[in-house]
């Protein structure tokens, strides 16, 4: 069954089409959401469910301009960003903010030949960060969200987001040196 047929059957509330929808696309959504919540994946199940509920609510607006897979992942991306937004809206930690930028030698990533090891080091370093710092870095860099967008979505100033990112980068750098 193609995307259009599946969507039509879903809109017709065909129960077997609904089962096919879940069976066909849940792995892609689950895998993506989990990857963006690592290492604290306890919210994964809730977010994945929310993705499918939102998809159902918005299914009438699906125009097949992209595949159903792409459309669902776009919804998943929004849900993940909502999650990041909620984390960043929490009051900033009371720890002293050292204005000194993280000055160090430029890391020579090319020296680390094994990309898998590099990824593992990144993952370990991210895992050791506070949830807020991790969310800020993932949202800004791995989700490629602009500082302006982050600021708008969290009702913070761009300056505040820049400061948060600077703190997060500094914490990341410190963790990086110890991993």
């Amino acid at each position, binding site marked *: 069954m193609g995307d259009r047929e599946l969507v039509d*059957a879903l809109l*017709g*509330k*065909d*129960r*077997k*089409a*609904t*089962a096919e*929808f*879940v*069976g066909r696309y*849940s*792995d892609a*959504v*689950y*895998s993506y959401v*989990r*990857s*963006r919540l*690592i*290492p604290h*994946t306890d919210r994964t*199940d809730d977010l*994945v*469910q929310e993705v*499918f*509920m939102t998809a*159902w609510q918005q299914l009438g607006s699906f125009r097949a301009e992209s595949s159903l897979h792409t459309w669902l992942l776009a919804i998943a991306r929004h849900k993940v960003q909502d999650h990041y937004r909620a984390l960043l809206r929490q009051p900033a930690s009371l720890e002293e903010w050292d204005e000194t*930028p*993280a*000055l*160090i*030698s*430029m*890391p020579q*990533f090319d020296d680390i030949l094994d*990309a*898998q090891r*590099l*990824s*593992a080091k*990144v*993952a*370990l370093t*991210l*895992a050791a960060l506070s949830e807020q710092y991790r969310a800020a*870095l*993932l949202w*800004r*860099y*791995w989700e*490629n969200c602009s500082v302006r967008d982050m600021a708008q979505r969290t009702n913070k100033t761009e300056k505040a987001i820049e400061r948060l990112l600077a703190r997060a*980068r*500094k914490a*990341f*750098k410190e963790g990086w040196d110890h991993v």
Partner: protein
Amino acid sequence: MFEWGDDTFKSLVKRTEPTALDKDKEAKTPAHLKAKIYSRLLSIQSETGPLASLTATSTNGRGLCVFEEAVRILPIGEQVKSLNFCKVCHARLLGEKLSKALIYWKNCPYADFHRS
């Protein structure tokens, strides 16, 4: 000496995925989660009117489980055949609660989720 700024991170992102430590990154959706999603979707669909009748589903070439088939052939109105029977089925309970439910009904979504 450089600051770890945007460029440093953009360089990192090009070469890495933050999932590297996730041993289950290739893992499939847990069957009980698929079951819950399916149940919630059916529940939401039912709230806004009847589901497609079992007759229509069958006519469209989609297999029915043994219980659905029994209802389909009963001499009752189509409206009754549009109810969400999964809501009262033990397979739903098992499918949602257990990580590996032993359900063998043919054409039962919950069984399919646990088989895949």
